[in-house]
């Protein structure tokens, strides 16, 4: 790497805390962020557990009321992380400096809040309580808050951050799963490698857990409805699915020479990326195939110039679903074939739940901390492991592995797989 792209700022919000320190401490002690859903009445759903985020409010983020009214939790998390990551990197978008700061984000699904439309629906009801479309078209639709349509656009959260912080560099929004977030991170790396911006924020944030997101996950079939005692156990033989989580994060990236010129410390570079598509099951949407996962991982190795033997740790997608976990383990084992050493694996989802588009960004920040501290927290995975995972998984207690080269995996349910490589400088 002639001038590596490094991390100089970071911020995360997870179910275990509203910053890296609290999340990291909780992960080391094996704390779980998963609990009963309290944001809405989930009693009618077959799963009533989730890893929720609380305590993020617009007042603390200095946002005008008119705009914060259309900001759902994912937008607030993105805003909070952006403000903190910029501070952490000692950056400001004021004046012309914002021209050189790019912003790429993976953002989850945006669901409409039923209450946003209820006024209009109520005003449309006829005497028999049925919706009278004539009433809706002629008057009732005006009950909807005029900026509500903007809130329904997936890109608005990024635009609101850009406006608030003055970020005018290159940008894009990818959606809705973790593979999208990794694509955004790599695009940020590409922008920096080719000198198109000075710094770039790379983000990933999950959608708010709501009746819609829970129903979507349940109908999709990836949520655990069988075992409420152990809602998410990555790489367990009889695992039953995952549990939804909220949260996300942002890293500030720049070239090492730029960081040095600003006297900003940097310990970790992002050096490789690969992605591929292939559905695990011809009948439906249950994640990528083993081959697609292996191709994505091999692509990340190729672009970084590393062999798999040199990878010390994989922060797996490891979501606790049968298809995804088994295919990922097979792909890892396949790449390990012929290797003299084993590559250890970790999954944050047993403790944090599945943060969807937010997951790989949180994992990148955790990977940076693992590299700098040498420690890897234990995976919450009580039960008999998938055979191929037994000697690989970090479990029971924190381990000092001193990883130097770390891979982060993220998948979609539609068949996309992405892998990113980070390494110590």
């Amino acid at each position, binding site marked *: 790497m002639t001038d590596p792209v490094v991390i100089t700022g970071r911020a995360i919000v997870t179910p275990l805390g509203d910053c890296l320190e609290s999340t990291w401490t909780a992960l080391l002690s094996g704390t779980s962020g998963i609990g009963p859903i309290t944001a809405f*009445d989930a*009693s*009618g*759903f077959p799963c009533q557990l989730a890893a929720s985020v609380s305590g993020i409010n617009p007042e603390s983020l200095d946002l005008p009321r008119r*705009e914060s009214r259309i900001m759902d939790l994912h937008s607030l998390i993105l805003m909070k992380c952006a403000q903190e990551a910029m501070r952490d990197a000692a950056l400001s*978008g004021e004046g012309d400096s914002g021209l*050189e700061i790019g*912003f790429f984000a993976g953002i989850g699904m945006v669901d*409409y809040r*039923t209450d946003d*439309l*209820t006024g209009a629906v109520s005003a449309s009801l006829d005497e028999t309580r049925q919706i009278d*479309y004539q009433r809706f*078209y*002629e*008057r009732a*639709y005006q009950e*909807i808050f*005029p*900026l509500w349509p*903007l809130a329904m*656009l*997936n*890109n*608005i959260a*990024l*635009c*609101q951050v*850009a*406006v608030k912080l*003055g*970020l*005018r560099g*290159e*940008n*894009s929004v*990818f*959606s809705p799963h973790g*593979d*999208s977030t990794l*694509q955004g991170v790599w*695009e940020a790396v*590409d922008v920096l490698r*080719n*000198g198109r911006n000075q710094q770039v924020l790379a983000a990933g944030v999950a959608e708010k857990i709501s009746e*819609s997101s829970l*129903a*979507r996950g349940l*109908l*999709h079939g990836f949520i655990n409805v069988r075992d409420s005692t152990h809602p998410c156990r990555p790489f367990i033989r009889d695992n039953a699915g995952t549990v939804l989580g909220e949260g996300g994060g942002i890293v500030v990236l720049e070239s090492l020479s730029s960081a040095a010129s600003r006297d900003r410390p940097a310990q970790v570079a992002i050096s490789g990326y690969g*992605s*591929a*598509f292939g559905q695990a099951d011809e009948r439906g949407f249950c994640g990528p195939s083993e081959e697609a996962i292996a*191709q994505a991982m091999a*692509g990340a190795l190729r*672009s970084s110039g590393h062999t798999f033997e040199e990878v010390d740790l994989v922060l797996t997608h490891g979501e606790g679903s049968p298809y995804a976990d088994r295919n990922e383990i097979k792909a890892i084992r396949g790449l390990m074939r012929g290797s003299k050493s084993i590559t250890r694996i970790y999954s944050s989802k047993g403790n944090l739940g599945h943060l969807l588009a937010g997951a790989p960004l949180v994992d990148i920040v955790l990977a940076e901390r693992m590299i700098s501290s040498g420690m890897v927290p234990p995976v919450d995975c009580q039960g008999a492991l998938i055979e191929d995972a037994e000697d690989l998984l970090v479990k029971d207690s924190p381990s000092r592995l001193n990883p130097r080269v770390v891979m982060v995996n993220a998948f*979609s349910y*539609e*068949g*996309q797989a992405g892998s990113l490589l980070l390494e110590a400088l």
Partner: protein
Amino acid sequence: MSSTSVKRRRVVITGYGTLNPLGASAEDTFARASRGESGISEIRAFDTTGLPCRIGGEVNNDWLKPLDTFAPYRKARCGKFSSRAVDMMILATREAAEMANLDQVRDRYRIGCSLGSHGENPSTGEMRFLHRFYHEKTGWNLRELEATGGFSYMSFLKRKPDVAPAILARLFDCRGSSLSIVSACAAGAQAIGEAFRLIQDEKCDVMVAGGCEATLNFSGFIGFVLIKAMAEKYTTPQTASRPFDRKRNGFVMSEGAGALILEELEHARRRGAKILGELRGYGDSADAYRITDTHPKGEGAILAMSRAMADGGVLPEEIDYINAHGTSTAQNDLTESRAIEAVLGEHASRIPVSSNKSMLGHTIAAAGAIESILSLMGMQKSIILPTINHEFPDKKCRLDYVPNKARHQPHRILLSNSFGFGGQNACLCLAAWDGS
């Protein structure tokens, strides 16, 4: 910052296809556009009684019928989980893939898919159904909902933006990077730009890139009524979209899809693919101004255009034509004109600038792709497409907008602009292919 600091792989176009209100193929669309025809009419897809805007650019339903006989579509049972927008995208991609002989490419892991797509809006029927089980004070009555058989999984699936590229990847056997971009009206152009980067970066050799949108349904339409962005004063549907005209008063919503096959130059040469043009550069930016308004001086647009030219190593005086975003809103057309003047200086007054949206309406995430295709075809045929309905010049919009009639004029390098709600801007720099 300097532009590209490393010599990068060149990216050419070897296929394109589109389905939109003007035509079921790229050639049909270009032929009608070059005659200055409009694809806008009264909306038939849903009842618009009472709405201040009742027009749109609908795709003829008969044009979707070829899907019934498209074997991969039937085999994968796409009809179950595809949506109107994705159906259009599949047909556009089929046209593009056939033109490029995409089947020839052996290593399918080197073919990716990059799509601007926002997923399908919930239908009024679905919303009406769901609201039966929701009460303001007590929330959802799930037991009652379950008793009806529950809500359809397919409706959720159709809402997801990454389903569209996944379907394309499956049907056309693209096993490389698959991404969905959701940058509103800039999404199609950004999807092409991101595909361009993936090829430059050696992640793929070929990319299916483009965008699709089908928002001519109540829930898709009503949002834009609420933000008062659409044309509400018009004498006929065909004259409502009037970019850069003094009497413009909003955009006209349309639906459609556009697909381009982008390919690394040497890869295309090796397999003997016909090269149709070159994607020279890509630039994007954020306005970072206001969430509801574009920057009055068009600063975001200036940045995007400047970055696209710098990326392509093109000087302002080398630009022969600009395919404008030209939405027909008072704000966009003025700020875009100012931005073009700022970027090109005196050269701005010497080149044609036209808006395809005058004929097609605004196809949102598909716009960047369809307009790139028409731009490319214009270069191939030496025809500049017109801005129709340009009757009353706006003193503040001072450029040559190619009013009402197509113009025969050879041109070799152009910019295609796409600016999104919220302030995301994208610009593509395309060049004619001369074999060098």
